[in-house]
Each structure stands twice: as C-alpha cells, then as structure tokens.
C-alpha cells in the first residue's frame, strides 16, 4: 500500500533542546566537525488505495493542522514514498526491492 511521508522540524529560530543535547554529546565524543544537530519528526502515513490529488490535499491539511503546530514547527516536506509508488512488473519482481511486504 502506498505511503506518504511527512517531515516536521522545530522552527529554525527556536531552541531545539533535544538537538542541543545530542550536539553536546558529539562534542564530548570528540566529533568536533559537527557544529549543530536539530531533531524533527517523520510521519509515514499508509493509504488505503491510490494516492490521488484529493488524498494528498487531505494529508497536507493534516500535516498543517495536526502533525505539526505552526507556532513551534514547520512542515518541511510531504512526499509519496518512492519505493511503493509504481507497482512492480511481474517479470521484474525478483530484481526490485519492493516486495509484497508493502
């Protein structure tokens, strides 16, 4: 079944205490080439049926109204997962990574 991926990040201008804590750990590990870490969220929404414009519009609305809070976060991307978009041809099924497990 198709999956739509929504990515949400804390607003750039806000302090991200989680990212800051990880960045601090990197410093303590001697990983000095990394100056900052920011941590966001990835939602994988499985759809019953094909991904139509209507479905994408509904997910976009959910992304803005529920998956994120526009006061503190930004929706940075909404994409259809590439590995499940086209149905594999029967004679190619062995060689492609997409399987029935999807």
């Amino acid at each position: 079944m198709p999956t739509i991926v929504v990515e949400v990040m804390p607003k750039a201008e806000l302090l991200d205490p989680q990212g800051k804590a990880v960045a601090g750990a990197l410093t303590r590990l001697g990983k000095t080439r990394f100056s900052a870490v920011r941590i966001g969220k990835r939602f994988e929404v499985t759809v019953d049926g094909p991904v139509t414009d209507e479905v994408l519009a509904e997910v976009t609305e959910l992304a803005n109204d529920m998956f994120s809070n526009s006061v503190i976060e930004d929706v940075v991307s909404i994409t259809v997962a590439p590995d499940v978009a086209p149905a594999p041809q029967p004679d190619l099924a062995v060689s492609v990574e997409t399987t029935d497990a999807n």
Partner: protein
Amino acid sequence: MRIGVITFPGSLDDRDAQRAVRLAGAEPVALWHGEHDLRGVDAIVLPGGFSYGDYLRCGAIASFSPIMAEVIDAANSGMPVLGICNGFQMLTEAHLLPGGLIRNELGSFICRDQKLRVENVNTAWTNQFEAGAEITIPLKNGEGGFIADAETIARLEGEGQVAFRYLEVNPNGSINDIAGISNARGNIVGLMPHPEHATEEGFGPDTAAAMRSGVDGLTFFTSAIHALISA
C-alpha cells in the same frame, strides 16, 4: 456553583483539581474526554498530567478529543476555563490561547515550589488576588517553555494578557519569564505551575510560617466562583 474537571487518558491531577474546587466552596463535576457533554457546568478545568503519553506534542492529541468541541464553544462564549500544565498545553494546541510550549531549556524535568507574580487580576481565575501579589505554588513539567512570535509577545504584554510571571528563577526558558497567560476577554487562563496542589494546609508548599502550609492556589478557584457570582 458547578466546576467541571475533564479527565483525559493520562490525566494525573484531575482528582486534585476536583478537591481544590471543593475546598474553594464549589461542587466539582467529573467530565470525560470521550463525551460531548459538559453536564451543565459553570466553569471548566483542564487538569495536568501526560495525556496520551505526551505523544505527538504535549496536549495535542487530547485537544482533538470529542469534549473539546464543547469546551471550545463554551470558552468562546465566555465560560471560565482554566488549563493547568498539560491543560495549558491543550489550550494552546486548541488555539484557545496563543503561543506554544516547548521542552525546557535545560532539557530536564523540573519539580519545585515556584514563586510567581500575579500580573493580571482582571481574569476569571485571578480576580481575588491583590495586584502584583507574589505567590508560591508547585511547578512540575518537562515541556513548559512558553514561546510565541515577537508580535504575539508584544500583544500579550501590551494588552495585559500575561497573567503570571516566574520570579527569582525562570525554570524552563519561557520568553519574558511568562508562566501563564489569558485570552483578551480574561475568561480563559492557562499556566504551567499547579494551583490545585496548594489548596490545603499540610499538603502545600512550605511557607515562612510553617511547613507545607501554602494555600496560594486556592485563590484561583475562589476567583472563578466570584467571577461566576458577579457575572
């Protein structure tokens, strides 16, 4: 006078809020998140806790509860609504109050008796305080940093919608030491510290007079009763 306290999955302080309502002299009414029924209450408390395990964002999933449709209608028509801690987070998620609450600046959960200044005594939940009163009530949260864009902060400060400010210590990095705010009308108030835990001698914060004798939180609930009587 009937004051409803809504229990959500993961609410912790609903019983304490009911007790506070009773100690203030009103009748507490238990309300359930999954119903579309406010049972005819005169005011509503959204209690503290960890609704839905703080999944998604604190208070976010609870703000989509069935009963929140009725809470939003009642709040918009002027009913006194108090959001404490997780309840404050729900009020911001439901857009009944502006701004948002993010993880504490230092990343850790903080539990302490917190000194506050009451900045606005013209709300449904603060009208029995003296202007500028300094009070102490417990604070306990992991995500209590109040933030909003500069325009919203300017409006909150300019219109007197900052209801409470942290004194001595800003425990979570809140902008302008903001501990709690109200809507423009003053019927909706949200704050991170917990007034319901400072309503009975023997169970409140320490005071200069005696251990655990602090009852500064009781005035939130007597204020609501006063607001309802004089309405």
